[in-house]
């Protein structure tokens, strides 16, 4: 299976934060979700892929090309959506579209007009008068109108109401009907990804915790809920993260088979959601630190 994005031993240091030796393949033809708490390094990673910031070490390849030498060609094939609007505030939606269109050889104005209609974007409205959700919709309309092979979205759903969130997820499935097209999607709202994501990359404090098929996560992790008497020092070691209160405990185990064997008869065993995996992993990291 070919990869659309490849990071090799990428390192980037800031004053108080560091992305450490990140190596990561993102598969072509699928939706990959990038999850992690705020400040985990999701945006920095995406900015490096887009060539907005340069890595200190390592190399990044997109569509098999080095992202520094071929930056223009690569970005021509990417549709980029960010949670913060980066358009000119004082121009109208239509003027902004007219500024953008000439840069993309594959620009399809009919497609754009279709999305403009579907998203109820008024062409005469100024960008600064659009709500956050509307700005993201505009950005999405632009990204989908130039035949991009790769959509890179940084927290795209953060300003959206649940109804449009669903609509957007449907657009994303529509986009990858062509198996040459891929999506990288960062979010801290994991319910967006619970359904449609094929791969999940989880980062925390600048490190990759895992990069796996979402399908296999449910076979690997187990959420256990039970009474505190079940916990002793050895048993505690099995948990990635554990939350205890007066009435019992709830915790995440990363070896599902073993966990089930031990707790099957004495506790409640469930398949964790992505949010639960994220929560307990971050919690566990903090406890060990």
């Amino acid at each position: 299976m070919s990869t659309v994005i490849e990071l090799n031993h990428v390192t980037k240091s800031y004053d108080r934060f560091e992305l450490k030796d990140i190596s990561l393949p993102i598969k072509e033809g699928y939706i990959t979700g990038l999850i992690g708490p705020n400040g985990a390094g999701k945006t920095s990673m995406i900015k490096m892929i887009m060539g907005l910031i340069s890595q200190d070490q390592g190399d990044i390849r997109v569509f098999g090309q080095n992202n520094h030498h071929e930056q223009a060609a690569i970005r021509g094939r990417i549709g980029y959506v960010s949670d913060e609007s980066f358009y000119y505030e004082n121009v109208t939606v239509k003027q902004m579209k007219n500024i953008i269109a000439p840069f993309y050889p594959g620009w399809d104005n009919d497609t754009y007009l279709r999305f403009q209609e579907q998203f109820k974007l008024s062409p005469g409205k100024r960008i600064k008068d659009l709500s956050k959700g509307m700005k993201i919709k505009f950005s999405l309309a632009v990204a989908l109108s130039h035949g991009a092979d790769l959509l890179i979205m940084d927290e795209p759903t953060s300003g959206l109401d649940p109804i449009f969130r669903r609509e957007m997820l449907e657009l994303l499935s529509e986009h990858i009907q062509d198996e040459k097209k891929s999506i990288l999607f960062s979010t801290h709202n994991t319910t967006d990804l619970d359904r449609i994501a094929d791969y999940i990359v989880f980062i925390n404090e600048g490190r990759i915790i895992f990069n796996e098929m979402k399908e296999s996560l449910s076979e690997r992790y187990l959420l256990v809920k039970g009474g505190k008497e079940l916990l002793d020092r050895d048993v505690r070691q099995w948990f990635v993260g554990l939350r205890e209160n007066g009435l019992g405990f709830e915790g995440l185990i990363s070896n599902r088979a073993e966990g089930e064997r031990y707790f099957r008869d004495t506790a409640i065993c469930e398949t964790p959601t992505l949010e639960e995996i994220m929560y307990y992993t971050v919690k566990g990291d903090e406890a060990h630190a």
Partner: protein
Amino acid sequence: MHNSIALIRKDFILTRKFALLLIPYFVLMLYSNAQAYTVFSLLPALLLLINACTIDMQHNNQKFLATLPVPRQQLIQAKYMTIIPLSLFSLICTLIMYWIAVTLGKLDDPLRWRELGLITAVIPLLASFYLPLYYWLGQKGMQFVNVVFMMVIMLSFTTFGSLNKEFPALAQWVQNGKIENMLLLVIGVLAYLIIIYASYLISSRIYMHKDI
């Protein structure tokens, strides 16, 4: 090339509104000091350039530019190239003003085209000092750069008054078109071009790997 044109076009779309403010400027100048029409062309071009640069730097607009399918080198190139149409725009505005002034009877001497040409040629030179500072200081330092630069423009207004004393050869050419020292002219033109090119290289160096 196609991208550069699209970028320059973008600057014109963005500064369109601002350009309208220049009409009162010209009217004011026409009534207060029509004789000095040659120096008027300096301000509009530079103001438009500063305006376009400021808009590019505000909000997250740098991010917009840097995510376009255009190499960063080309972003800088286009900014430097924008100076040419802006200078021409300024020149045309000044010529129109001159014509109006003559029609109204406020001016009756022939067009001082050498002086006008020389002052227009100063626009790219001043821009060459502005742009590297702009790329270097970015959003945070931009207010400061703009203020300092406006002062430089004002200063260059007065410098033309003392042109006679500082550069007698140049002043003579402006007066009667006579070139006495060819070597000096060649050196002058070369220095002019080198300054602009050096400015471009410095801007590129600053901006090529900047984190946005």
